């Protein structure tokens, strides 16, 4: 038994070491409590729905979300809009389809099975419209930045006037959490920029938290079922481990008594 503890210590040592090394650059991000971070963590539905509203009314004019489909909005574990609501949301967008029987492409209202409509045709068009900087696709953004949701939340609230020794070009802004502190996105959210459907006061912090929650869901739509399944799997493994441990003791007791 002594050995198995040694092995476990070693594994934990290597793992924590790796994690430390991976997050070597320690940055003090702004803190907020995320409902989805604990072992049983779930998304806050209302926050997801508000987050979608922020995405739709603020971010979506520049940032695509090309791997997310309208149908996802009504699927379990997500914002869980009703199917009727999502159909209405989808129908408010137009997508290119075709060719029809005359061989021509045509526009039609989006359906549940369609992906979110991109604000620009392609990366080059997005760059041209944004002073050369490509507004990154947001589908997996929450997983594509070290620091994850904390980083995104902090970035949204990290706009400041530049210190006097920093010179900013036109169309470049100062953000204390951006790598190098210079960012080409103007401060996207301000107090009361939008009006929430559910009457929640739209403070900067609230909007940042809601939209970041939404981005986390978009990046990891199965997070809730992952947490649920993980609990069952580990509980199961512990029970089986205990059973096998006692079986092992039984079996080995034959040998030890023979000696």
């Amino acid at each position, binding site marked *: 038994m002594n050995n198995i503890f040694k092995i476990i210590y070693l594994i934990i040592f290597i793992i924590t070491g790796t994690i430390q090394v991976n997050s070597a650059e320690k940055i003090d991000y702004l803190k907020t409590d995320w409902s989805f971070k604990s072992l049983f963590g779930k998304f806050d539905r209302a926050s997801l729905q508000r987050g979608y509203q922020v995405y739709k009314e603020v971010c979506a004019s520049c940032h695509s979300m090309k791997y997310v489909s309208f149908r996802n909005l009504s699927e379990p574990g997500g914002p869980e809009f009703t199917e009727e609501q999502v159909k209405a949301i989808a129908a408010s967008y137009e997508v290119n389809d075709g060719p029809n029987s005359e061989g021509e492409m045509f526009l039609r209202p989006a359906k549940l099975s369609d992906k979110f409509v991109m604000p620009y045709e392609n990366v080059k068009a997005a760059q041209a419209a944004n002073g050369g900087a490509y507004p990154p696709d947001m589908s997996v953004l929450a997983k594509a930045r070290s620091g994850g949701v904390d980083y995104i939340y902090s970035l949204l609230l990290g706009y400041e006037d530049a210190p006097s020794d920093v010179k900013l070009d036109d169309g470049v802004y100062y953000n204390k959490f951006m790598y190098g502190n210079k960012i080409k996105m103007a401060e996207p959210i301000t107090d009361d920029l939008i009006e929430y459907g559910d009457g929640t006061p739209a403070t900067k912090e609230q909007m940042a938290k809601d939209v970041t929650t939404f981005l986390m869901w978009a990046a990891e739509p199965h997070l809730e079922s992952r947490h649920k399944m993980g609990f069952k799997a580990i509980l*199961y493994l512990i029970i089986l481990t205990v059973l096998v441990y006692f079986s092992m003791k039984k079996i080995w007791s034959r040998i030890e008594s023979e000696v």
Partner: protein
Amino acid sequence: MSDKKPERREFLFTASYAVGAVGVGAVVWPLIDQMNPDASVKALASTEVDVSTMEPGKTITVLWRGKPVFIKRRTSEEIAEARAVKMEDLKDPQKDEDRAKNPEWLVMVGVCTHLGCVPLNDKGDYNGWFCPCHGSHYDTSGRIRKGPAPTNMEIPKYEFVNSNTIKIG
């Protein structure tokens, strides 16, 4: 003491095996289920077809869920022929009224129920469809009349969105 021991041992081993077997089953299922149609495939449920330009007697074939769907605008003779068939002559008895809600329009999955080939239009002994693979004959209502196919061609879920447009699925 000693006669009680084997009993506990047995229980312990049986429990370990049983719990282990449950775990193996739980692990195997995701590996099997991953081959089932995925969420994006299931979502592609419906296709809309514009039929405003179709003349009576004409058939078009559209793709729905990767399969051909025949849409036929039947002539009055074809409708009469389909409705006149006696149920006892049919291998898979089904009234034409049940197959074509609007008698002028027959919408069905164009896949032979024998082994999945696509039957040819306006062929065969019953003025309907004929499957070239193994010689199944279908009538003007898409019902099996002769040959190895066991059932009539399938009617998908569809509806008229308006008088010009059929939505399949």
